[in-house]
């Protein structure tokens, strides 16, 4: 399958493109300049894989939680590609994307992304025999409170050890968008909070 994965919710830009035979994958650090780099990277990837936007069969977008601006960058691009060429759009928690590289191994994973001040975005996933179970859904929480209450044996995933796996993401991104015009990021918080 020819597909694109985008996530710009964190300090890292994640882009994965495949034409089904060859892959193009980028993980790039730089919280404040994802917007400047992302389209050039997509263009470079399409060229290297000899693809067009219109040849994509699926688009998977990390819709948060995470950096508000970052979420809008990836989702705007994904919505536009999807609308422009009628490509199916799937959304997935950005925290699932950031921890996807661990989900091939059984265990319990606490995936986090830095929020403002002393807060983080977090999610806890248990993997058992290849099956994923959400123990705690996406949450905005004080970092100290989250860490203090974390059970032993849970692997903590922060921006220091994000790992991505495109095949896992393709497998777990099941939320197909019905109405492209209404989809918006999962901010988890009100605009004025």
């Amino acid at each position, binding site marked *: 399958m020819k597909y694109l994965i985008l996530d710009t919710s964190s300090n890292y830009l994640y882009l994965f493109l495949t034409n089904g035979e060859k892959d193009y994958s980028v993980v790039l650090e730089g919280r404040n300049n994802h*917007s400047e780099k*992302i*389209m050039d990277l*997509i*263009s470079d990837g*399409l060229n290297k894989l000899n693809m*067009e*936007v*219109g040849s994509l069969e699926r688009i998977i977008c990390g819709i948060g939680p995470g950096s*508000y*601006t970052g979420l*809008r*960058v990836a*989702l*705007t*691009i994904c*919505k*536009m*590609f*999807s*609308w*422009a*060429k009628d490509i199916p759009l799937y959304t997935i928690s950005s925290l699932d994307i950031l921890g996807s590289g661990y989900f091939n191994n059984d265990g319990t994973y606490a995936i986090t992304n830095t929020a403002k001040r002393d807060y983080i975005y977090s999610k806890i996933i248990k993997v058992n025999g290849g099956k994923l179970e959400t123990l705690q859904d996406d949450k905005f929480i004080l970092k100290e409170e989250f860490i203090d209450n974390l059970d032993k044996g849970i692997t903590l995933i922060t921006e220091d050890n994000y790992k991505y796996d495109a095949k896992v993401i393709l497998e777990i991104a099941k939320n197909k968008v019905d109405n*492209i*015009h*209404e*989809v*918006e*990021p999962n*901010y988890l918080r009100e*605009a*004025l909070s």
Partner: protein
Amino acid sequence: MLVLGIESSCDETSVAILKDGKEVLANAVYTQIPFHEVYGGVIPEVASRHHVKKITYVFEEAFRIANVKKEDIDLVCVTTHPGLIGSLLVGINAAKAFALTYHVPLIEVDHIVGHIYANFIEHDFNFPMIALVVSGGHTELRLMKDHYDFTLLGETLDDAVGEAYDKVGRVLELTYPAGAKVDKLSFEGSPSYKLPVVLLDKDSYNFSLSGLKSAVINTVNKCNMKGEEINKADLACSFQTSVIKVLVSKTIKAAKEYGVRQVVVAGGVAANKGLRLALASAVEAELPNVELSFPSMKYCTDNAAMIAVAGYFKYLIDKKNN
């Protein structure tokens, strides 16, 4: 040539499709004003959230109205500055995505230049000309000798005209956006309150409106302290009279000094009826051979048609220079 314009610099998401930089086939605008009204101004994060939610919907509307195919677009133009960064990024990324998908050139457009070119939709330009840009975020006088040949003659040193109107509107207990309401109210009163007309140095084309705005606020506060009733219509009229005196006198002075053939007014405050009447009267009396043009009301506020026109001319100039 079919030109696609995209504007998202503040609280309007707009997509337009124009033929040859002049004929507007569609100018779809999604306004967020009702969502910002309760806060008395634009909240940047709220604005950004609306843009990303509505962006494809507005694209769809524009193509439906224009009745053209996406693959028929030859050029994409987008506002890149100035504006709210989070809002701008939505339009910019949407524009880039569309341009990449259909392999068409992308032109970056200055929002203020867009406002000036809003006039070109319904009027031709006769150079040299003076552009008075008056909006919620900008107050400028520019000399234009040709397309994209701008000289900034003056700008506001503090509040923009539209900003001063909104702040005055707030003390007059008018809801945001207050510009049109202050304008309307001013026609029901007379300029009975003594307010300053700040012209700065006689050779300066700069503006300063914060003193006038503060004078209005002080007048209201003094009346409240004394328990006196404020004549809101008179105060609105006094404020508007002072603002218009400054705008008109500097515009006429610049037009005379640079011997222009046309004066164009641009930006949201170009919709102000008091300004339209006063400037028309002054131009007729003092500059009988100078053409005066305002955009029609729908092109005064933020819209993508003006961005498409401005981008189209920038594209032609870039092409010629290259």
